[in-house]
């Protein structure tokens, strides 16, 4: 895999990364500062998690910076964000956010089983993230305000109160247990599919696929065992289990930006795609005239390729191969191979082979 | 590795992939006479058919397959398969039990035969079945039912080639040579065959020859995929083959490009030919055929000068009112130039049906008994009666040929058993054929899909698809090979040979049909064919597996068959000499007229097989070619103001259909082309001419006169 930045100016990448990391660290610092009420409430048991979380944020920032510096990524983000400024665009994006990430409809279209499995894992993991980060970074904590009443304090502001034994309190204490169970179910389904499904997709090599599942299961099981130990075993093995849990979580946090889990941030870019495809002018193929893309996207792709010195122009014209639909691209190469003329009906040009396996304007081929 | 006979074929050095939990059934494709080898992937757990895996080691195709071959397995798990017997009740086909169906069939047979005589019950059979089944159908007709009226759909397919070969060479084997011999030819003359689409797996052999420098001459009215890569493309007007070949012979004789020694020593009749073709000079032939005189001369020179060469042809030559003349005339090309009996020299017809060769050898043809014996030959009758254990007098004589049989339904023939065929799509004047079938007192059909013909039946019996049975097939070369299957019969379906044996049992003729396996039947077939022309006596299942097929004749257990015929240049006549026969050009039965000014010719597309009952149901194949169309040359289209994609009405004196126009320069200006794989309102056979070839009784599918009319409104939805 290519984790390297896309721009040739690698210094640019370092500079921007440093800047972004700095910004993220400052924001983190202040959020912890405020959340812990000037470091007043600090759960020292979560100290190890805190540093791992901070490191995870730093790594993630660098990874995202490298990613968004790549011209195609940058273009797509920009286009998406630009479109969100219109009410229609924003509504579209929000709707896609729900169908893509909320109900994950596209996975349901791939397979129902896969969808159920992925819903368990993704929501299990996302809620675990939310709870873990909130607690570790002290964005949220509970204060005993009366002998039998807790107050939930978010960023230093007491939000609500609840009885120590109230069902709500129990649901919240065990939040991570519920998400853990969901994750275990999902991972179990995923493992079962990997073992029974004979289809060997080359895109999913085994090490890439099994390790993350085992990691998630390890985190979820050690986490749940903590509860088991506390509730039913009078705290037996608590320290050992706690240490194991901490180790697995820290591995996960550091592994996250460079692993299969990296697709999570990518899904947010996916939300931009439908609006990107539908809210721009359609482009007809230069040869057959069939609409096959949007004008914007073809321009974006050509720009991205140019930055990579991979432009594929049709010589002596201002067209690129991407100005033709996929079928016309395939056919044009073959007609060129026959030495036949290639009529671009829509662009009113006639092409011929260059003799170097490319295509060019035929002499007098402008109509 | 492999038997010496397979040395020059196109097998490849790879093993098939066997996946976990699966087994591979090594068998052959059910579509077309090439009989390409393939492995069927079967899931062990439930015996379900899950896919196809190339059989790289089979000589004929080396794992290669055409789209029909790749998709063939998809019939097995198809949801439209008939899984229960159906009986017509109150005008509708309804699910019934086997006992009900069999009781009804037997009582109807007895009733009809009791009332109108034995011959009033006919059998219309097919040639895509194994040799075992084809043999059984013939035997069942003669001594199960005791009817003379059995014929088969090969009548529409292979019969002209058969008669032509017999009258010229004294023997009919589709290919006189193993297919690998094609690679060693210096010239290939392919006539009336769109080999690339109808027998795609012959193309590696044709390219094999070309890669060695061979020239390719293609005779076809259209610039097909085959003609596109020809050195000379003789795009003759449909139905003018006899004249064209006379022209080629004229040039070769005039320019002394003939083999006089061969003619003198191994043929008779050359002088008559020479005299007859004298008037067929290139200019005259050019006028008849509508192809340029210089191309005729070039083709004649290429063919005449080549040391080795093949004349190969298919339905484009054969399905004519003078089809047998044309076949023998093409054979003449090889006879006068001495292209016989060597690697790289011979004649061949591209067998269309899966078992087009085997199906015409073992007695389901009305004039024939097993082993290519004539039913009128007293010795043959004596022998076969002996094999079957009946008295010679019990054997009926020859009955009606396929189309004549259809025409006599409701009149002479009151009951019909239809097996492995769909005549209401494949016959000429299909509208009338529907009426014939409806006029029957009783009509029973065996099939695994409810074909257009089956829809009209009183009883439909569910049979199995080809990979659910065992047996042998005989391919285009005359190679007998083993078809293997999965041991399963989905739903209540039964293998058709078992059903036939059951009916015989219920008719009280069971003692003649005590077969427990296809191999039992084959062993009887071996004895029945012994001493005949197509002699299978020395062929065993074991030998077929070991040698990857055996070429007949194989008369003894020691024999390894005869891949190449006539190596000693002795032809199958008492004097050992081939017959050079001379034919005057007569032209097609129906000529164009003022009212019907355009020639219609029909043919196939690569995605479909015959009446399309199988291939039209396979999604992928149907999607690539969902509906028929009419190919029109731009100049002709201009006359009628027709643009591409518009709907056109094509009519002949017999009927009309509406089709989408495909404007293309590949066709001639004086003709249109329509593929024939569709039924009902999409059947081009509403228009085709039922004129029969006098000797082979093949209908003239390839030429009739039509007119075109542009239809203003669009045709709407059409789905075949």
């Amino acid at each position: 895999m290519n984790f390297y930045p896309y721009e040739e100016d690698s210094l640019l990448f370092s500079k921007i990364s440093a800047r972004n990391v700095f910004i993220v660290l400052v924001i983190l610092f202040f959020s912890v500062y405020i959340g812990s009420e000037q470091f007043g409430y600090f759960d020292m048991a979560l100290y190890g998690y805190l540093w791992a979380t901070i490191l995870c944020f730093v790594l993630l920032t660098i990874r995202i910076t490298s990613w968004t510096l790549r011209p195609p990524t940058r273009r797509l983000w920009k286009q998406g964000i630009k479109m969100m400024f219109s009410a229609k665009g924003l509504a579209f994006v929000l709707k896609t956010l729900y169908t893509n990430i909320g109900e994950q409809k596209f996975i349901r279209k791939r397979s129902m089983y896969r969808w159920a499995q992925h819903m368990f894992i993704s929501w299990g993991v996302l809620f675990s993230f939310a709870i873990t980060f909130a607690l570790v970074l002290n964005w949220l904590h509970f204060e005993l305000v009366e002998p039998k009443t807790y107050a939930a304090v978010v960023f230093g502001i007491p939000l609500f109160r609840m009885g120590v034994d109230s069902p709500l309190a129990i649901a919240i204490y065990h939040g991570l247990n519920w998400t853990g169970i969901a994750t275990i179910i999902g991972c179990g389904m995923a493992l079962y599919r990997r073992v029974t499904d004979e289809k060997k997709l080359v895109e999913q090599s085994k090490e890439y696929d099994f390790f993350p599942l085992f990691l998630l299961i390890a985190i979820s099981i050690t986490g749940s065992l903590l509860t088991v130990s506390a509730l039913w075993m009078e705290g037996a093995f608590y320290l050992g289990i706690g240490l194991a849990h901490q180790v697995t979580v820290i591995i996960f946090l550091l592994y996250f930006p460079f692993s299969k889990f990296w697709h999570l941030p990518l899904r947010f870019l996916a939300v931009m795609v439908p609006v990107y495809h539908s809210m721009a002018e359609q482009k007809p193929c230069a040869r057959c005239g069939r609409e096959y893309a949007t004008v914007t996207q073809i321009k974006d792709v050509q720009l991205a390729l140019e930055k990579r010195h991979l432009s594929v122009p049709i010589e002596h014209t201002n067209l690129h191969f991407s100005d033709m639909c996929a079928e016309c691209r395939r056919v044009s190469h073959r007609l060129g191979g026959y030495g036949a003329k290639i009529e671009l009906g829509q662009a009113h040009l006639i092409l011929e082979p260059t003799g170097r396996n490319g295509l060019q304007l035929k002499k007098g081929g402008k109509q | 590795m492999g038997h010496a006979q397979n040395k020059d074929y196109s097998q490849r050095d790879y093993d098939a992939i066997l996946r976990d939990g699966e087994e591979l059934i090594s068998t052959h494709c059910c579509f077309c006479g090439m009989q390409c080898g393939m492995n069927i992937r079967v899931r062990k757990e439930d015996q379900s058919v899950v896919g196809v895996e190339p059989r790289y080691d089979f000589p004929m195709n080396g794992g290669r397959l055409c789209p029909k071959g790749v998709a063939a397995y998809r019939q097995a798990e198809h949801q439209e398969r008939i899984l229960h017997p159906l009986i017509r009740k109150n005008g509708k086909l309804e699910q019934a039990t086997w006992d009900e169906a069999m009781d009804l069939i037997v009582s109807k047979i007895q009733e009809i035969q009791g009332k109108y005589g034995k011959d009033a019950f006919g059998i219309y059979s097919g040639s895509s079945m194994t040799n075992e089944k084809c043999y059984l159908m013939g035997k069942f007709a003669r001594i199960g039912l005791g009817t003379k009226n059995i014929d088969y759909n090969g009548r529409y397919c292979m019969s002209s080639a058969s008669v032509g070969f017999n009258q010229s060479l004294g023997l009919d084997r589709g290919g006189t040579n193993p297919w690998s011999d094609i690679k060693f030819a210096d010239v290939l003359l392919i006539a009336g065959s769109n080999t690339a689409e109808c027998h795609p797996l012959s193309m590696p052999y044709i390219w094999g020859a070309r890669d060695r420098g061979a020239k390719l001459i293609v005779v076809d009215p259209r610039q097909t995929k085959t003609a596109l890569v020809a050195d000379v493309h003789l795009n003759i007007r449909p139905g003018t083959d006899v004249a064209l070949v006379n022209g080629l012979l004229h040039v070769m004789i005039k320019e002394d490009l003939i083999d006089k020694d061969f003619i003198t020593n191994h043929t008779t009749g050359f002088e008559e030919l020479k005299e007859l073709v004298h008037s067929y000079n290139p200019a005259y032939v050019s006028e008849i055929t509508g192809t340029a005189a210089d191309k005729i001369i070039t083709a004649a020179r290429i063919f005449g000068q080549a040391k080795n060469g093949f004349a190969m042809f298919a339905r484009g030559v054969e399905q004519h009112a003078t089809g047998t003349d044309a076949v023998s005339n093409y054979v003449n090309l090889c006879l006068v130039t001495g292209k016989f009996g060597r690697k790289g020299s011979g004649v061949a017809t591209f067998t269309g049906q899966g078992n087009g060769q085997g199906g015409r050898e073992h007695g389901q043809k009305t004039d024939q008994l097993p082993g290519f014996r004539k039913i009128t030959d007293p010795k043959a009758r004596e022998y076969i009666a002996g094999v079957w254990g009946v008295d010679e007098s019990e054997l009926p004589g020859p009955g009606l040929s396929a189309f004549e049989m259809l025409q006599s339904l409701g009149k002479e023939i009151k009951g019909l058993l239809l097996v492995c065929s769909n005549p209401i799509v494949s016959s000429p004047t299909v509208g009338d054929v529907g009426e014939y079938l409806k006029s029957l007192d009783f009509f029973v059909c065996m099939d695994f899909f409810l074909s257009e013909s089956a829809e009209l039946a009183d009883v439909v019996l569910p049979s199995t698809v080809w990979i659910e049975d065992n047996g042998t097939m005989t391919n285009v070369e005359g190679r007998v090979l083993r078809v293997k299957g999965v041991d399963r019969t989905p739903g209540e379906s039964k293998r058709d040979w078992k059903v036939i044996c059951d009916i015989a049992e219920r008719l009280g003729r069971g003692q003649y049909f005590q077969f427990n396996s296809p191999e039992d039947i084959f062993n009887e077939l071996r004895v029945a064919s012994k001493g005949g022309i197509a002699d299978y006596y020395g062929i065993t299942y074991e030998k077929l597996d070991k040698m990857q097929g055996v070429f007949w004749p194989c008369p003894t257990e020691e024999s390894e068959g005869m891949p190449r015929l006539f190596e000693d240049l002795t032809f199958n006549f008492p004097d050992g000499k081939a017959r050079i026969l001379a034919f005057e050009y007569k032209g097609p039965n129906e000529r164009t007229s003022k009212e019907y000014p355009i020639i219609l010719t029909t043919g196939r597309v690569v995605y479909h097989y015959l009446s399309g009952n199988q291939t039209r149901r396979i999604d992928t194949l149907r999607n690539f070619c969902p509906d028929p169309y009419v190919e029109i040359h731009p100049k002709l289209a201009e006359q009628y103001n027709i643009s591409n994609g518009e709907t056109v009405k094509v009519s002949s004196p017999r009927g009309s259909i509406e089709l989408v126009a495909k404007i293309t320069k590949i066709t001639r200006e004086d003709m249109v082309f329509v593929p024939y794989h569709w039924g009902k309102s999409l059947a081009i056979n509403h228009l085709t001419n039922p004129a029969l070839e006098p000797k082979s009784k093949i209908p003239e599918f390839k030429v009739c006169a039509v007119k075109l009319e542009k239809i203003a409104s669009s045709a709407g939805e059409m789905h075949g």
Partner: protein
Amino acid sequence: MDKVLYIDYERCIGCRACVIGCEECSGHDHLSRMFVDELNPGETVATSPTPCMHCVTPACAESCPVQAISIAADGTVLSASMEKCIGCKNCTYACPFGIPKVDDVKKVMYKCDMCYDRTSKGRPPMCASVCPTDTIRFVDQSDLKNDPPKPVQFKWDFGGTIIETRTVIGLPDTEENRFGYREGDGVQS
């Protein structure tokens, strides 16, 4: 042992056995990644198959905003990873040869992977296995590129951008114009 696809397209009969065969590869989920195109319908029946050209520097991968397209150790350009692909279609436009396809409903890109399931076991891809006319062949890369049987294409110069492909295209014999499509001819009587 390094074998690549060789396309000798003047032999193509347009039967699409390769297209259907492609569905039969275990890793392909019954989605065909092969193309057969009519070159000039109405003028000729000439057709050509196109599998992925497996570029050394694939434009599809370079244009992917989520880096979902990777290259296997043997140089095979793979389909986009299922979890990364966002279905944006950049790859389908960037590819100069018109190969990648995106399933709009499942939101996933798929393309020829040379039947990794087969080639990893030393067997030819399905298209080369079934092609009835040997238009598509699976042959030794160095033999083919160093000593081609006829003029071939595997280095493409697009206005200075050089793209090298693992797949090799055999050019029709246009010198003698013996085989295949002849421009403007139609059928001469």
